[in-house]
């Protein structure tokens, strides 16, 4: 679009004028250094506890946010946990799921009644299944990275969202999640979307009363493996 560069220069110039400064190598290198090595953040005490305690915290916060948390000892038991949850909530045994290799490799034969459909979610899918890149104990937060393996629409369109996360991916604070993202996607790089999810969708916009399922899922079920 014409003039875009002019507008950028005008905005940047005005900022420099206001700051009483100019484009200097010293200021650039100060910024480069800050981006390269951020000062150590303050990670709250509660996020720096033993793994067992972190598991409790993770569960406690998610349940406090009206999510269901199921713990299974190994991946082989995930399909049964999903089947049990869906039957218990009287939901259809039909999942929309991406191409995530871990989810694909689960022992689905143990739950032959569960039907899986591949691809992004459409308006009529009732249950979405995703795998989280990380889980943060500090606030009971799932970290989902979008892509063909875990399409972003699975997280928001179906009324029920089931998320599988492995114990090895459970970290204490947000900083642990950033590290996992950087390890997977590289430094200074991100997938199209990263979603921090801490419960089912909600609103308090009518009379200040909390209601689940505003636009996204009414139910969130988290399966912690290992």
């Amino acid at each position, binding site marked *: 679009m014409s003039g875009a560069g002019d507008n950028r220069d005008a*905005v940047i110039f005005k900022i420099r004028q206001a700051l009483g400064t100019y484009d200097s190598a010293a200021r650039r290198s100060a910024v480069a250094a800050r981006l390269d090595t951020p000062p150590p953040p303050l990670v709250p005490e509660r996020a720096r506890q033993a793994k067992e305690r972190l598991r409790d915290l993770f569960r406690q916060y998610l349940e406090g946010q009206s999510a269901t948390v199921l713990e299974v000892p190994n991946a082989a038991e995930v399909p049964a946990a999903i089947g049990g949850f869906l039957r218990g909530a009287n939901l259809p045994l039909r999942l929309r799921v991406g191409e995530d290799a871990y989810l694909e490799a689960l022992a689905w034969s143990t739950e032959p009644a569960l039907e899986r459909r591949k691809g992004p979610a459409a308006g009529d899918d009732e249950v979405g299944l995703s795998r989280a890149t990380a889980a943060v104990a500090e606030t009971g937060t799932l970290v989902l990275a*979008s892509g063909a393996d875990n399409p972003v629409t699975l997280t928001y369109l179906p009324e029920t969202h089931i998320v599988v996360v492995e114990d090895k991916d459970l970290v204490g604070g947000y900083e642990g999640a950033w590290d996992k993202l950087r390890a997977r996607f590289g430094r200074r790089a991100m997938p199209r979307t990263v979603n921090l999810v801490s419960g089912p969708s909600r609103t308090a*916009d009518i009379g200040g009363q909390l209601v689940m399922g*505003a636009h996204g899922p009414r139910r969130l079920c988290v399966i912690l493996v290992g």
Partner: protein
Amino acid sequence: MSTITSPDFKANARAALGDRQLQRALSEVAPGLAARRSAARAGLPEFEALRDLGRDIKDHTLAHLDVYLEEFERKATAAGSIVHFAPTAEDARRVVRNICRQANAGVVTKGKSMISEEIGLNAALEGDGLEVVETDLGEYLIQIRGETPSHIIAPAIHLTQDQVEADFRRLHTKLPADRQLIEPAQLVAEARQILRQKFLAADVGITGANFLIAETGSSVIVTNEGNGDLTQSLPKVHIVLASIEKMVPTLEDVGTLVRLLARSATGQEISTYTTFSTGPRRPGDPDGPEVCHIVILDNGRAELLGSEFREVLRCIRCGACMNHCPVYTAIGGHAYGWVYPGPIGSVLTPALIGVAKASHLPNASTFCGRCEEVCPMKIPLPGLMRHWREEEYSAGDTPLLYRLGLRAWAAAAKRPRLYHTLARIGIPLLATLGRRRGAFRWLPLAGSWTRHRDLAAPQSRTFQALWADHKAGVPR
């Protein structure tokens, strides 16, 4: 730009105090938000230390804002976003209208964005014949009433459930007339059903941004409903509206600010959804927008950067200052007369629309200091309001009666003997008169105060007298 009624603040406030629906709505929601913040703060021992860190992050970024913006543009462009800079509201509207035109858009969905209100975007797009749909439930409620937000995070805080039911019955005429709409859950379900169709039909999705990250070229939105995510994930085109001060350096900095944001706003540990968006869909991605535009708005903020008001640019728009303000909680947000209400609005609005139109706002404060006390970014709001009052006074815009009053007060305050004598006569008199109730329902010359609240009666003796006794060792 949105309609400005800030010059009528006094009349607005009077009307708001007499509006029973509004008073009911305010009394239901605002105190709860303040109490929840307090509980969340108590649950995180590091909260105060995080406030210091948050302030430092913003101060550092603002001092290097030109460099960070260039770095952000470089990273965002590398990720496939198209970055636009908009010096004015008009520039921003033009950019967005052009994008919608080129996309041949018919339906535009929107996530919550205060900047969109600031630049009057909906009216501009509707003028081009587009169907514009607000998808945050609170924003939807006020859009169908033709109103503006009265709170920055709870835009429909001024509405009661009955009003919402009446609006839904009036507007959603394709649904059965005898349907039940008694519970909030039934109203939410109906809005979900209506808005779901809009999400799926939209050609362009517009969201705001809570943060822009220089490290990765990402923008961040924070919601509880997930509406912003459906807005940006389903249409072909995603437009992010952000102002220059949303910039932060790294993911670590976002972590620190996220620890402060929801706790200060709603008392949640974290909002339900915090979403990082970086460019359009990648090769192999089965969903997400095909094009991503980021519009970065100045609209007067650069000038603030070079003024004594720089600190207001640290604001992360949590709304805590509103929830704790005795003025806001008495009159609601609309009385302030423009987009940003409450203490933050009283500092920001004069800068954005001119102090001449907004001169009442910095005066609409008791200087109780609670806003500064609860501000996660430690913005000295009362001090900044005082700056505006000084500017107004030196410009000679303060009303005559007010100036005379100030002069009389100054004359007395600068003469301790005169002051003590006046106080020695006045205070016991008021104390005696107000003894029975401990407060006045009415006082001459204070009618506009006592019309809506009591004025506490003073103690029987002056502070100076009590202090003199204390020093002389007289027991109380």
